[in-house]
């Protein structure tokens, strides 16, 4: 039996966009999607896809990517397929637009996972680069009653258990978890693989499964938000940088050292 792996992924505004393009519409308390800069798959979720594909490289496995949102850029969300994932399931509905409410997102994803018959292993990115909540994966584990290991830098399967190298502040620990389990991964897992030409061709032919609220049997009352967003703003910086000059770079460096000495910092 192939190992059934689910990967949870989120479409986010490109975090690498220029700082000047980052703007907030305070009337709706939302970040304005920048013009001409397409969204991306959350970086940590690409690490999760990579972790799943590494398992698929070494044993029989299927990789299904699931995402929830109200509007998807299909070519963006197909990237995991072009990297080598087998299936893409998009939970798309106007009701699913409250992306700051982790409860709502985790609930949708867990309902979809149940409908898909569950997985032996679910891999997620540690957090999304938009709201940085780091809650949805742990919430899905709770809603589904799964064991959960967070902050993995390496994930493998050994017989009937999942082996995770989990980051700790001064190194890592090796954790064994049963199957099914949910694991979150971090960028320390390494660069996600690039899509191959063959992968891209295969992905263009694949159609995602798209489920709306009624496909999942979800009504608005089930999505009662757990948190309220009162304000969203860009913090002001009042720091003024004193540029240390010199006739050349070496002299500027020497002047810097003097300055730090005068300020009793060294």
């Amino acid at each position, binding site marked *: 039996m192939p190992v059934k792996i689910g990967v949870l992924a989120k479409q986010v505004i490109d975090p690498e966009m220029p700082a000047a393009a980052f703007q907030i519409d305070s009337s709706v308390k939302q970040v304005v999607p920048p013009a001409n800069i397409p969204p991306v798959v959350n970086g940590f979720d690409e690490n999760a896809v990579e972790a799943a594909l590494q398992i698929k490289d070494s044993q029989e496995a299927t990789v299904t990517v699931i995402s929830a949102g109200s509007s998807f850029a299909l070519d963006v969300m197909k990237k995991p397929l072009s990297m080598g994932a087998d299936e893409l399931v998009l939970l798309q509905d106007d009701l699913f637009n409250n992306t700051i409410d982790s409860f709502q997102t985790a609930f949708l994803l867990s309902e979809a996972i149940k409908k898909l018959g569950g997985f032996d292993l679910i891999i997620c990115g540690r957090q999304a680069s938009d709201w940085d909540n780091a809650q949805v994966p742990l919430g899905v584990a709770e809603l589904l009653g799964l064991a959960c290991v967070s902050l993995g830098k390496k994930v493998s399967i050994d017989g009937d258990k999942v082996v995770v190298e989990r980051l700790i502040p001064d190194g890592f620990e090796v954790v064994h978890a049963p199957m099914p389990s949910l694991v979150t991964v971090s960028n320390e897992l390494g660069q996600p693989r690039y899509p191959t030409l063959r992968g891209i061709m295969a992905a263009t032919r694949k159609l995602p499964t798209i489920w709306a609220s009624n496909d999942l049997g979800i009504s608005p009352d089930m999505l009662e938000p757990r948190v309220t967003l009162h304000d969203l703003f860009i913090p002001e910086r009042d720091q003024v940088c004193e540029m240390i000059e010199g006739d050349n*770079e070496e002299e500027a460096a020497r002047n810097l050292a003097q300055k730090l000495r005068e300020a009793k910092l060294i």
Partner: protein
Amino acid sequence: MADASGVLVIGEAHEGQLGTISQEILAVGRQVADDLGEQLYIGLLGDTLVNASAEAISYGADVVYAVTNPLLSEYQSECYLKGMESLCKEISPNVILIGRTNQGRELAPRLAFRLGVGLAQDCLEISVDQANKTLLANRPVYGGSAVAVISCNYTPQIAAVRPKVYEPLAPDNTRQGEVISFPIELDNETPASRVVEVVKEEAAGIKLEDAHTVVSGGRGLGGPEPFTQLEELAKLLGGAVGASRAAVDSGWVPPSYQVGLTGKTITPDLYITVAISGASQHMAGCSSSKVIVAINKDSEANIFKDARYGVVGDWEKVLPALTETVRELTQS
């Protein structure tokens, strides 16, 4: 839970002593409890908690719940969650505050989901909205590019607070408080996952989080070798070496060096950045440094917006001259 009352700090005890993070969270907890006119509780988990309990009272707790079981002697998420869940059901707190440490990152969301309530994650500031006695939490989002103000719609209202944001109160050994023993039942089957090996790979010398001076390098260094030069300067200053995520992702230094949103949070007196552009996710881990010094060849780099002193130049020229002058100044 209309009768929910009290502010519960989820504490961390390490080898029987109260963790620094718990001292910090007790400080913000004290403020919130006083603003709400409620009691400040702390829940400690472990097997021997006598010293940590006394410390918790001296740092501001009114009541300590010592949640004990031999299985709680080491952190294990399942066991700790069961302990916290039992305690919350017993005392129905109005507010729960957790430090966003390695443990807190796991416990806070799972506890919130287990209790069916919301969580304000990774908060930089917690206040009480006096109009309706609810908690308001400021938290960085979009990698620190923006700040969101959120509140929780259900009780208990849970907030995870970023480490090193709040200063502990001065400990007062004459403070009076109550210690309530709360032994819990855990069957041996509870842990679903288990740690089989721990691999330490931290640099020798002073810990990054504790250093008064930190010298960090970024993508612009171009490789692992320049970190030797950073170490030389850090050593002269009695400090530690850190790195940006780009340097860690490139494999130049181990992950334990990473400063930033997903790495370590540091608050040194002096933070010298070398060839770091200053992406907001990096600044999220160091913006509370007292003085930031930036060395970068790009005068437009973001880092100069947060720096107190800057040198625009090639690090290969600036760093050796800086190190040499520091040597002369500090050793004369």
